[in-house]
């Protein structure tokens, strides 16, 4: 057991040494891996941000119901009774047309415009809050309310939240596809750098084989090299995503403040960051093991 650990430690140290010795070429392949991985990782962060935004909207499950102009007070009372009796609805607030006009008048710059009107163009309205905040329930409720004879228009914020959610699903699929495609590319990059490394160490491999090194022993430092290169690439990808999001958040915050929101894109969670590292490491290992199996056969001592 101790000697087994020693063998692995030696291989790891040898791989670290090679990584340090490679300098430029090793750095470039880690950079390639980093940049490539930062695309899906960054895309994922943005999507997570947008989904949380959509979730935030859905937390306010409001539906605005506008009555037809010319509806009477009894029409409004009848609808109010119906809304209050609906089990899916938690809260009903009536906004009379006179009050709506007052609110609108309070808005800067609109007072003169409204004074110029000879009658109130606004309808009576209800603001309804559903108990269940899922976009599906809200959309269904809005659909039903739309069919009521006294209702002119129903506006459900949940609908665009739902659109956003399905857009996010589409985006997630795109990110997954991108990640899968880039994974192939990264395996190819490591495959090639390990191939070059094998060629430069041809003599050492040949001698080692001649004097009794097992294939496992010869393979090990190359596998570690692939793993380390992948991990370095993964770390670089996280760094790029972090820097990109910090840059973006400066602008996003300014924009969000004009909407009275403090929205910002969060960096990947610890679990997601770990997943990126593991994914990159695994790809490096895979590329190295393919390369080693392919090219070690070619080094046959004579």
């Amino acid at each position, binding site marked *: 057991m101790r000697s087994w650990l020693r063998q692995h430690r030696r291989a790891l140290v040898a791989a670290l040494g090679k990584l340090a010795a490679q300098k430029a070429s090793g750095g470039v392949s880690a950079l390639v891996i980093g940049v490539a991985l930062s695309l899906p990782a960054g895309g994922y962060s943005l999507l997570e941000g947008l989904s949380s935004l959509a979730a935030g909207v859905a937390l306010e499950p409001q539906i605005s119901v506008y009555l037809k102009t010319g509806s009477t007070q009894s029409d409004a009372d009848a609808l109010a009774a119906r809304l209050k009796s609906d089990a899916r609805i938690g809260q009903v607030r009536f906004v009379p047309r006179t009050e709506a006009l007052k609110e609108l008048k309070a808005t800067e710059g609109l007072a003169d415009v409204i004074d110029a009107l000879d009658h109130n163009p606004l309808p009576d309205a209800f603001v309804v809050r559903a108990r269940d905040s899922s976009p599906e329930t809200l959309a269904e409720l809005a659909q039903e309310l739309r069919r009521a004879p006294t209702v002119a228009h129903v506006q459900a914020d949940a609908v665009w939240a739902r659109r956003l959610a399905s857009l996010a699903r589409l985006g997630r699929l795109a990110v997954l596809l991108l990640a899968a495609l880039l994974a192939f590319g990264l395996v190819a990059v490591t495959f090639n750098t390990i191939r070059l490394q094998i060629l430069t160490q041809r*003599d050492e491999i040949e*001698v*080692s084989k*001649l004097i*009794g*090194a*097992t*294939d496992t022993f010869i393979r090990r430092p190359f596998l570690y090299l692939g793993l380390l290169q992948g991990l370095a690439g993964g770390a670089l990808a996280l760094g790029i995503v972090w820097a990109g999001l910090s840059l973006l958040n400066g602008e996003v915050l300014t924009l969000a403040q004009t909407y009275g929101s403090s929205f910002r894109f969060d960096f990947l969670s610890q679990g997601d960051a770990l997943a990126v590292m593991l994914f990159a490491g695994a790809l490096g290992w895979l590329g190295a093991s393919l390369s080693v199996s392919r090219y070690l056969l070619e080094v046959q001592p004579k």
Partner: protein
Amino acid sequence: MISFSAVSKRYPGGQDVLRGVSLTVNAGELVFITGHSGAGKSTLLKLIPAIERPSTGSVIVNGQNVSALRPAAIPFLRRNLGLVFQDQKLLYDRSVYENIMLPLSFSSLAPREAARRARAALDKVGLLGREKANPVQLSGGEQQRVAIARAVVNRPAILIADEPTANLDAEAAQRVLEIFVAFNQVGVTVLLATHDLGLVTRYGRRVLRLAAGHVVEDSAP
């Protein structure tokens, strides 16, 4: 300890390099294998560590039929043999000491014991004190002695050397041969190929002469 029975070797698309060679080398023997270049000396030696496989016949080393060994078992066979190659095969990107440590890095030896053995091997070939040097800084004879130290560092019972004196002047060649004789005196079985018959006859040891793939002379002292 080593026995060949009716061994022939034909390289793909080539001639027969060995034709029906049968011979036995007992434990503790020192055997010189001579013959002109192309006589099959190198091929004969390469069959023992399974670097080459015979086309027909069998090669038995320590009771093990190495001509039928599965590939995964070959490294373990080679660890029990000390190999000195015609072109030395030293690694010029590292020191003499690191070259000698190479075979020990495969084994499960503790680092302290490995270092001790490496120094002992250097001592035996008279290169103690040159361990930090790069092989290119050494003379041809010294490089050959580094190769011998690497071959014996695992304390093999069999030492196989292919033309270890090939490119050396008479004095350096003499010195290298003395080292092999010294190892033989402590019980190591030695097989040494050389085209220089004059150099080896003075030792009064068994000489195997190869010509065109046949053993044409096997003179025991």
